[in-house]
């Protein structure tokens, strides 16, 4: 532990040596975060940055790391065109490189001519320029990009382009950033998590307002940090006396908080996104659920009196605004798990059973109103065997398994062990034949690691043929991938651009979470999260499963 701290001290004294960290310091931070797998090194680097950066840059850093970036000032089509122009390569070659590198900003930073110079500007200056850039002409945008690409060094160029394209995913969760911010400011981590939620604009808010000040009116839309459960380790019996536990099904939708305050409705999804406008059916809550109420639940598709599949819900998630037709086709409900605020009071510290009693009373009051407010039923068992039996029913209940919650548990913040556990059903598995392969991304771009798998099916002539059913690109070790890659290269039948068909020969066990009928898939079946469980070297292709075997798994 002690040694890790020295690491980052050394890193940061060289990196954060200058007075104003600016963009250079931010790029150095991203580089450090990017080049370690160790959580404590990341937290220390962030803490050091927060201690040294200017208040304005800090606000922007918090915004960026919590995915609140300004709207994209340049569309990616233009970015690609201009980057290939500056690199003096044809656009197709840019696209091929992008396909292999796998990240647009990284591709651009790599292919444009390299520069050894660096910038003196602050992070805030760059973001203000980007906000202003959105309204400018294409010519001005191009000039701006070229000027910056030419003078920034590799990491600054990458970060600069990343700010334009958006989506900073660098292995730093909001929780990790909050922990570092707590270390730097000596403000309690949970309080910070609360402050950072909701709608705030990094362009107008100050560090003082966002982090330091207490400001009641800001809290109107703010959700509570979600309490997340860990997957159960070992046997459920290890949890002790079954009578201390409450069980309920784990629904497969969008974990959400519905907030009613001051006659206003706010719907937050677990990614801490405000999604109120996507679910207009919840507007009915404004007149039926009292102010000062916050409910934790799952948004689920509910079609003809039955819970739909995640595939159904997908059609709703993608849209910013929802058409009347879609609203009719895939209506949603809130399946309530818990209540966090009641009559304007934060009741997260009350025991689970007390909170549930309040929630159930509220539910009963609205039961005859026909509003999209459902209750996730809690169940109490007298033995763990009974719990296990209920878990077996999960698929027919359209759930992913069970949630086990201690009856006396408070509603905690974030992912904490002890009081809540998820006990998912084991994944479904099927043995399938490798039929197509494509090169992977990044490091794996020289290897064929993206595979397509097929199952046997009888065609109209009564002949058995292989029908594609899923793609998967994870689950094998590096050594296994290399072996399969070498085999693919020697057993290619045909090439279709980047894709190769291979001799049907190898059988793999594929695991997946959910399964549903689908018109969009050739096999007529869609699987959720397919991945390779293991290489069945012991099986010949004739021992692989059939499409009928797969269909029989549909609940």
């Amino acid at each position, binding site marked *: 532990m002690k040694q890790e701290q020295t690491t980052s001290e050394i890193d940061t004294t060289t990196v954060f040596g200058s007075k104003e960290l600016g963009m250079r310091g931010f790029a150095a931070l991203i580089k450090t975060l990017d*080049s370690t*797998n160790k959580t404590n090194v990341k937290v220390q680097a962030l803490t050091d940055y927060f201690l040294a950066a200017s208040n304005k840059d800090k606000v922007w850093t918090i915004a960026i790391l919590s995915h609140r970036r300004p709207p994209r000032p340049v569309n990616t089509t233009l970015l690609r065109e201009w980057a290939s122009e500056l690199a003096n390569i044809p656009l*197709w*070659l840019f696209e*091929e*490189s992008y396909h292999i590198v*796998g990240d647009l900003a990284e591709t651009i930073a790599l292919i444009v001519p390299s520069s050894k110079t660096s910038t003196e500007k602050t992070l805030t200056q760059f973001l203000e320029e980007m906000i202003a850039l959105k309204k400018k002409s294409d010519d001005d945008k191009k000039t701006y990009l070229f000027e910056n690409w030419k003078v920034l060094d590799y990491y600054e160029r990458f970060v600069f382009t990343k700010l334009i394209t958006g989506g900073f995913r660098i292995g730093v969760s909001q929780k990790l950033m909050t922990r570092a911010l707590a270390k730097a400011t000596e403000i309690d981590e949970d309080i910070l998590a609360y402050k950072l939620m909701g709608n705030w604009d990094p362009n107008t808010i100050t560090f003082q307002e966002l982090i330091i000040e207490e400001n009641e009116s800001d809290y109107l839309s703010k959700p509570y940090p979600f309490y997340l459960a860990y997957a159960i380790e070992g046997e459920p019996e290890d949890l002790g006396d079954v009578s201390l536990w409450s069980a309920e099904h784990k629904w497969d939708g969008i974990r959400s908080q519905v907030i009613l305050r001051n006659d206003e409705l706010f719907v937050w999804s677990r990614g801490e996104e405000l999604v109120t406008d996507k679910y207009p059916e919840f507007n009915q809550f404004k007149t039926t659920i009292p102010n000062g109420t916050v409910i934790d639940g799952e948004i689920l598709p509910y079609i003809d009196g039955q819970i739909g599949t995640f595939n159904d819900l997908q059609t709703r998630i993608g849209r910013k605004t929802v058409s009347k037709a879609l609203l009719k086709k895939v209506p949603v409900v809130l399946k309530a798990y818990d209540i966090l605020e009641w009559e304007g009071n934060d009741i997260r510290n009350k025991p689970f059973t007390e909170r549930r009693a309040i929630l159930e009373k509220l539910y009963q009051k609205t039961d005859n109103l026909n509003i999209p407010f459902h209750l996730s039923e809690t169940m109490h068992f007298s033995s763990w065997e009974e719990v296990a039996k209920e878990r077996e029913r999960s698929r027919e209940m359209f759930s992913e398994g069970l949630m086990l919650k201690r009856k006396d548990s408070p509603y905690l913040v974030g992912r904490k062990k002890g009081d809540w556990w998820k006990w998912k059903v084991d994944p479904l598995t099927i043995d399938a034949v490798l039929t197509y392969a494509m090169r992977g991304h*990044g490091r794996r771009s020289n290897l064929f690691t993206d595979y397509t798998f097929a199952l046997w099916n009888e065609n109209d002539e009564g002949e058995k043929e292989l029908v594609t059913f899923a793609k998967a690109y994870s689950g094998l070790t590096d050594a296994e991938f290399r072996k399969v890659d070498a085999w693919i290269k*020697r057993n290619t039948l045909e090439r279709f651009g980047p894709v190769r068909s291979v001799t049907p*020969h190898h059988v793999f066990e594929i695991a997946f979470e959910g399964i549903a009928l689908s018109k969009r898939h050739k096999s007529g079946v869609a699987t959720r999260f397919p991945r390779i469980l293991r290489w069945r070297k012991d099986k010949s292709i004739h021992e692989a499963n059939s499409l009928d075997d797969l269909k029989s798994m549909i609940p």
Partner: protein
Amino acid sequence: MKKPLLEFTDKGIYCGAAKVYLDPWKPVDKAIISHGHADHSRWGHEQYITHHRNVPIISHRLGEINVSGREWGESFTVNNVKFSLHPAGHIIGSSQIRVEHKGEVWVFTGDYKTENDGISTPYEPIKCDTFITECTFGLPAFKWTPQQEVFENINQWWTDNQAEGKTSILFGYSLGKAQRLLKYLDTDIGKIYTHGAIENMTQVLRPLVDFPETTLITKETKKEELLGNIVLAPPSAHGSTWIRKMVPYVTASASGWMTFRGARRRRAIDKGFVLSDHCDWQGLLSSIEATGAEKIICTHGYTEIFSRYLREQGYDARTEETQYGDEEDSTTPEETAPLETQTP
């Protein structure tokens, strides 16, 4: 139609006029070998011809073989076809193979790089009509920095780790990369320890190149004596119990693949140094131009992309399937061995 001077067969690159194979991947009678990496010099040929600096390498790797060594530029004829070997700059003893018959000249690069690494004889462009080139890093995303800068960074990294009382573990392929790293490690910082595979290969090469002193890690080596020093290990040792015993340590990899941010992270390595024994994008393009060749055949790497680009630049370029791969990946015999196939 006249047969081409070199053909791509299921055994390797074949010169029908001379009945000789270049870097064949299946056992043949007579093989001319570009260099000592496992994917280019395989076991089982009746006769091997290669540069004399490669003789100790392949003898070490393949054991008892019938091999004869040649000098740079020395011509030798087989059935009236004239062959000669020219420096490829890839690793010690790596050659391009020049083939001349009836006024037509073909050059096969094996693997090559344009930067002078100070231990391999530097690459020389050879005029030819047809140029058979590798293109492992044939994408514009690959741009190498001069090795001096990379080695300064590596030595700085070692110094920093030492200041924290940690052992530095640096991964590099046991033939080529490991010796290139070894040559430029600053022995004023500390001692250089080696993994057995690297130590053995380095011993083979010591008569050819002046290398710093190395200490082989054995069962008797105490982990305390490693602290602050550096360990050179092949990439296959990553994650092994052999490595885990060395805590506290910091790992790094030196490879062209470290260009990609994701590469280091996916392999769970602490630090990546971009250092390659192959050409980068510009290196490939300038080499091709310098040969004056009109016909280009791309053998391994990003062949489809690279040959398409060459065609757009006016070359008659195409791709041929070979069984050469990235030797930095295939570090153990187990990983280079073909899969047992049991087709029904």
